[in-house]
């Protein structure tokens, strides 16, 4: 088990190194000089040159890569070209919204999907199964920004339970923060929960058809005991995979929902940075997202081994 975790850790580090190189090179080949972009069209060449020096853009590529990576390792992500503020501050602020939002949405999605998937699988072909499957079909099909707007129309404008957008900041108290994130989290969770419920159902159906389920029944377990004691844990592997993928997606892919609800999250930050050629911000945020994705993959791998002893030997 320890060997398994160590091996995963090694591959995590290797992935990060490769990813950092790829990101750095990709940003390098993108056209557009941040210095001339910042100074505008009419800037004098020597002013641009001076700014390039100041930003460290004239150093060799290798030096710049090493500086970037070692800076990140010590928490220094550089200074934004556009806003002239430390990138780390901008990221911390944004992640304070995107992180909780992703976790909130994932929790909601899991809390909806598990019971729905289990009910659908254990009562296969029943009215409950058919309605749950129909609902998930709809959940996957509806664009989440449209669903978000419906939520706003109903809960904010009609009922006035939630504000229609914006974020008061965590200093206004946990409850206020969570309240502001509720509608976006629901909008994000709907398609995710639908997918997860379908995966849960089909995985559980497969497991319920296995021989060891029959063995358990022959031991005298009731159907309910068989489900809880034998089927669920075995059905969990594909579900964990999907949860891992969904978390990564939610962290960075919430940009549309962030826009609908005027949330200053990571997705919006990176979008703005790209359009303003604020390459240092783009680099850092993308690297951070890669780190989050790789970390989640690592955690999912460890979870596999906890669930399934057969994987521990690998």
């Amino acid at each position, binding site marked *: 088990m320890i060997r398994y975790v160590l091996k995963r850790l090694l591959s995590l580090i290797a992935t990060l190194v490769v990813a950092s190189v790829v990101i750095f090179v990709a940003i390098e080949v993108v056209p557009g000089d941040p210095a001339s972009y910042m100074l505008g069209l009419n800037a004098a060449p020597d002013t641009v040159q001076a700014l390039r020096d100041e930003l460290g853009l004239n150093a060799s590529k290798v030096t710049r890569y090493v500086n970037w990576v070692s800076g990140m390792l010590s928490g220094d992500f550089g200074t934004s070209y556009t806003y002239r503020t430390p990138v780390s501050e901008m990221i911390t602020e944004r992640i304070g919204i995107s992180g909780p939002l992703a976790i909130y949405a994932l929790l909601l999605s899991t809390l909806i999907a598990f019971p729905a998937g289990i009910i659908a699988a254990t009562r296969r072909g029943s009215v409950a199964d058919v309605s749950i499957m129909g609902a998930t079909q709809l959940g996957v099909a509806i664009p989440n920004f449209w669903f978000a707007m419906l939520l706003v129309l109903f809960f904010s404008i009609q009922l006035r339970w939630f504000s229609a957008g914006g974020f008061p900041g965590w200093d206004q108290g946990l409850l206020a923060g969570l309240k502001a994130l509720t509608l976006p989290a629901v909008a994000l969770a709907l398609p995710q929960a639908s997918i997860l419920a379908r995966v849960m159902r089909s995985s559980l159906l497969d497991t319920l058809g296995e021989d060891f389920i029959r063995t358990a029944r022959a*031991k005298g377990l009731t159907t309910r005991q068989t489900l809880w004691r*034998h089927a669920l844990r075995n059905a969990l592997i594909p579900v964990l995979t999907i949860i891992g993928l969904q978390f990564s997606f939610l962290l960075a892919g919430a940009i549309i929902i962030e826009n609908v609800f005027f949330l200053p999250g990571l997705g919006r930050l990176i979008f703005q940075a790209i359009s303003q050629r604020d390459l240092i911000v783009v680099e850092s945020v993308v690297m951070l997202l890669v780190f989050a994705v790789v970390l989640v993959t690592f955690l999912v791998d460890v979870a596999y081994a906890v669930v399934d002893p057969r994987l521990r030997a690998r």
Partner: protein
Amino acid sequence: MTLLKVENLQLSIYDNPVLHDIDFQVDAGQTLGIIGESGSGKSLSALSVMQLLPKGSKATGSILFDGEELLDKTEAQMCSLRGDDIGMVFQEPMTALNPVQTIGEQVAETVFIHQQVGRKAALEIAAQTLEHVELPNSEFPLSRYPHELSGGQRQRVVIAMAIALRPRLLIADEPTTALDVTTQAQILALLKRLTSEHNMALLLITHDLGVVADIADHMVILRHGTVVDSGETGTIFKALRHPYTKALYEASGHVPERSVKHMLPEVLLDVNAVSRDYRLPRSGLFSRPDSFRAVDQVSFVIHRGENVGLVGESGCGKSTLARAILGLEKLQEGSITINGEQVLADMQMPASLRRQVQVVFQDPYGSFNPRHKVKRLVGEPFYLLDSPPAGADYDMAVTEVLESVGLAASDADKYIHEFSGGQRQRIAIARALIIKPGLIVLDEPVSALDVSIRAQILDLLAALSAQFDLSYLFISHDLTVVRSVTDRVLVMKDGRIVEQGDTEDVFSNPQHAYTNNLLDSVPVLPGADNP
């Protein structure tokens, strides 16, 4: 005293009658064998007793267990009977255990769902029970997981789960079918011991007459959901009064008629000091990975027209060797030649060589693409030819080969799901035959088939070999079958050939202790010649 009495049992699944008026009974301490081919309803009869029938089933009649009607019991009442008074063991030990729970937990579970005992006490009983089924705790601690055990060991765990609470009735559904002969003999001996020690009744379900002959006091023979013959085991075998019983008996020991050796002196396959290593996972993070030698310095030849058997237990390297001959495994040592041309692994193997050797696999259900018609499936090896037949020639070649394996030309336009297991195996043979190879590797070709179908396929193979001067490498764990269809036999153990020689010599006068052991484990049909 009669423990289980089944009378007029009728079963229908979604109004489709599958069992008709089944009657049988078994006394405490006695063993009843239920015999039948696939689809005869033997497993459904057992599941009726357990009330673990598939969805849509409706059973009528009477199943009296210790004087109580099981068909009237509620699900909750059945739950308390199952595992406590009636235990059941299934066919497939590889999948019958929960892969994510330790064997200790799984055996203990039987105890604590039926009795008010703590976890510790339940695990204590589990430990005793595992000892009882000959899995000593010193070697197999409770913390083992199923994937760390062999098939035979897993079957012992399944048996331990079934007998942990000393049930009065044990139902064993093909408990040894998936196991090697030697393991089969051990498991049967264990079941026999347990029934006599605990005065337990045993319902032994099998398709193998040899298995019941040795262990059952009474037997029931089922066909198409009806009891066709029943009685005391010795009497049934002596009288063979029902034609179906007789047919089954004859098919079980069937020896195809084979013409006197039509073998030619020409060497077709030459396997010379072949070894195959598999890399094992690294033991340390940076240590060199160890390797496991699956095939170790194996040498033999097959002449044109010769049928050679390869026997051995699972894991002995039979299939690896077969794959090496087919050019699907890289060799670490030695060489394989077919007709003097060297076999190279994977993509390097030229088509000219590939078309000289074809293969038939064990599982007729898994070895066809379900979306292709038989015409395409059978004609697939044509791509190995330089100028494959097209159009009418193609159809004619397919028709010809289908007819030579006993199918009709019209079968060419059907899909594979329209065929039974035996027919599929004929199609597999047709596919191997269509480009007239010199050698066909048959990897357990009849193991998945019922005895009567098996007899037909063996006859077909013998006839084809004589007709086309075909050589076979016939791989099987079933010694009776190998004896009936081969000229020469190789006995393999732990990657090595421990004995080889003319089939009759090896079987009647085995030289190696291992061969002897294998032969002793084969269940013998009473009255029949030795296998």
